[in-house]
């Protein structure tokens, strides 16, 4: 029941928010986001870490004629992502409280987004998953479209059509699976798993391709990433945060939840290709990031690089990689959230994102720069920060899988360090110039947002155990199923 | 008795001539008259079939076609006159102001 509450509370709240005036609306939105956080924490404590099956599950009939049910539930993998969402949402909302006033519709969309995201992470029915997947797209599209920057109409439409194309392929794959379910056709996750595994190899490959396309566009993996930097740049802060911190994870989550268990044979066969794509993406994005002049764009490319690493780790299909991916998802979400916020703070104060114009902020805003350092180090994966755990596990798994791939993927740390430190140097250190001379330091709101981020980065980096425990059972279960099946095929 | 094929040929020919007229002429009234010719070709064939099948329903259907034709003519000519009032022309090629 709590899951249902988690999904529908923001939904109802979003309708309510529309009806009230501006000051109250943002307050209401924030309260709801906090309430969600509380609920999810309660759930995390009540979560049975040993169990592999979904917990807190609800199973209602919905569209009986199509075999679609409203069934949601939370297992270890979901739990982490739900936590990520609920943790970040208050932050995102809080970040908008700063000094820009957004109309109630903005908060309505935010809450809608949260609802959809949680829906995606908890859906235990193929169709429901798809619906939430698409629904999650709409609010963020409008957030970017309405409150975005220059050229937003064209760029956001590109983003929308890209993702929609991917998800349509996913839909086709889902329908394909649906028709292969036994007995009365159903979209139930278990029957879809069975259906997928019952497929022949070529059919599996088809399903794999369709799913992978959808997820790859969402993440985004190398050749499908072209929408991403533009969109990140043009989107408003909150849009960028949503996209990068949470929506990216939808793709990865999709791979874990839907791609690997459904078509293990195809994954076994073609996972390597995906992995190589991801690794290419890492190097490519990192290289581009190095030459970026635009601060926000740089972060965007860095995000591609990191996500590439996660994807590559996933397709190693061993326990370390999986767990690394899980923890890195959290870490990346938190870090990138903080990064973008800092970019926005600087942009707000200097009205520029051009790295060559910035510099010397450390002199005028020490707090800002120290927070930036911590978060940046998290991104660079310095030990004792959250990034380190994840990247270590991931590269480890890649090396186990194939040394050369691991080596190339390892470049991410080096290149990441290069561009991040360069950025720090350009933005923070050096002499203040006229643009940056009068930059004020963090204010109350910003500190309220950024301090928890810093704390989280450090806490996860130091003590990731509980989080890893949450997902361990589910990951093990997944891998055991996979290895059984791929072995049996071979 | 005349073979039914003859009637089929005849009405096909008339029908095609009607279609030809619709495509060929630019005068809206004549285009419209050619549509009437098409309907008449249909009527003729219908009556022929009805007669050959010895089934009165075909001829009854022709009544409905006639009623409809009459109604269509009334409405069509009224619209045509309305159009003529506005454009002072009955040239159907004038009807191309509506473009995207």
């Amino acid at each position, binding site marked *: 029941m709590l899951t249902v509450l988690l999904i529908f509370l923001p939904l109802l709240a979003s309708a309510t928010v529309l009806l009230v005036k501006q000051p109250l609306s943002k307050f209401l939105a924030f309260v709801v986001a906090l309430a969600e956080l509380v609920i999810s924490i309660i759930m995390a404590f009540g979560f049975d870490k040993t169990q592999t099956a979904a917990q807190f599950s609800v199973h209602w009939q919905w569209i009986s004629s199509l075999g679609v049910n409203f069934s949601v539930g939370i297992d270890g993998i979901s739990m982490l992502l739900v936590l990520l969402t609920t943790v970040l949402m208050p932050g995102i909302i809080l970040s908008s409280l700063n000094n820009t006033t957004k109309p109630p519709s903005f908060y309505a969309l935010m809450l809608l987004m949260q609802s959809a995201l949680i829906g995606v992470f908890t859906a235990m029915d193929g169709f429901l998953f798809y619906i939430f997947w698409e629904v999650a797209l709409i609010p963020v599209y409008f957030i970017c479209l309405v409150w975005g920057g220059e050229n937003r109409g064209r760029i956001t439409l590109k983003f929308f059509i890209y993702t929609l194309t991917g998800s349509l392929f996913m839909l086709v794959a889902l329908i394909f699976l649906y028709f292969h379910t036994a007995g009365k056709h159903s979209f139930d996750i278990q029957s879809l798993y069975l259906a997928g595994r019952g497929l022949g190899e070529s059919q599996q490959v088809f399903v794999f391709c369709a799913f992978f396309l959808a997820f790859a566009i969402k993440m985004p993996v190398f050749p499908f990433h072209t929408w991403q930097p533009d969109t990140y740049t043009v989107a408003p802060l909150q849009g960028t945060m949503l996209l990068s911190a949470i929506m990216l994870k939808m793709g990865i989550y999709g791979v874990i939840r839907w791609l690997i268990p459904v078509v293990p044979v195809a994954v076994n066969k073609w996972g390597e290709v995906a992995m190589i794509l991801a690794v290419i993406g890492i190097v490519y994005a990192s290289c581009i990031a190095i030459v970026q002049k635009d601060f926000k764009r740089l972060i965007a490319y860095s995000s591609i690089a990191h996500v590439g690493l996660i994807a590559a780790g996933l397709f190693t299909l061993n326990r370390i990689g999986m767990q690394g991916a899980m923890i890195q998802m959290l870490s990346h979400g938190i870090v990138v959230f903080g990064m973008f916020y800092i970019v926005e703070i600087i942009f707000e104060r200097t009205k520029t994102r051009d790295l060559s114009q910035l510099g010397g902020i450390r002199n005028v805003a020490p707090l800002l720069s120290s927070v930036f350092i911590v978060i940046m180090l998290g991104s660079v994966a310095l030990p004792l920060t959250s990034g380190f755990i994840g990247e270590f596990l991931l590269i480890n798994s890649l090396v186990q899988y194939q040394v050369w791939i691991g080596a190339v993927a390892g470049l991410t740390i080096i290149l990441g360090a290069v561009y991040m430190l360069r950025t720090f140097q350009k933005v923070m250190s050096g002499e203040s110039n006229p643009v940056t001379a009068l930059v004020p330091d963090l204010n109350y709101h910003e500190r309220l947002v950024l301090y928890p981020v810093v704390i989280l980065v450090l806490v996860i980096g130091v003590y990731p155990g509980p989080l890893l425990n949450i997902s361990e059972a589910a990951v093990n279960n997944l891998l055991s199923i996979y290895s059984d099946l791929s072995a049996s095929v071979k | *008795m*005349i*073979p*039914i094929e*003859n*009637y*089929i*040929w*005849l009405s*096909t020919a008339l*029908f*095609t*001539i009607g*279609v*030809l*007229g619709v*495509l*060929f*002429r*630019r*005068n809206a*009234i*004549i285009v419209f*008259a*050619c549509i*009437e*010719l098409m309907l*008449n070709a249909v*009527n*003729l064939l219908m*009556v*022929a079939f*009805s*007669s*050959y*099948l*010895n089934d*009165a*329903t075909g*001829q*009854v259907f*022709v*009544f*409905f076609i*006639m*009623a*409809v*034709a*009459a*109604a*269509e*003519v*009334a409405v069509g*000519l*009224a*619209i045509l*006159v*309305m159009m003529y009032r506005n454009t002072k022309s009955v*040239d159907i*090629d004038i009807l191309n102001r509506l473009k995207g």
Partner: protein
Amino acid sequence: MTLYAFYFLSFVAIFSALLVVFSKNPVYSVLYLIITFFAIAGHYILLNAQFLAVVHVIVYAGAIMVLFLYVIMLLNLNEESEPHKNTMVKIAAVFSSGLLLLVLIGSLRGASQLVHKTGGEIGLVQNLGQVLFGEFLFPFEVASILLLAAMVGVVMVGKDEEKNAND
């Protein structure tokens, strides 16, 4: 005898139908169409459908074509005001309708297997009435709606707008 009549009427029908299309003067076109209609009425009589023949004459020749002529005269259309299509369009029109004819002919061959059932009394008023007011009562009644709609429509299109309508 009837066959000759058939050929004669068919010739008249097709010939004047062609003239409908190719006459320059709209009035001639309409008059040729009337001739076509009479030829078709003749066919009806050959087919033993006298009632329909007369109704055909009354409706088409007596009412519909009069309306056509009426409008042509009202708008004073003649040869001079006749718009001309360019040659390409004409060729295209002839070509496409020729194609249609070919398609129709090709697919209509082999109709001779249809067996002629004797009787021949169905064209009489009594029989038609039985069918019309028996089985086809509903369409008959519905046709009144159709005519009503047409009537209202024509009045609406034809009547001048009432200026300064109050409500």
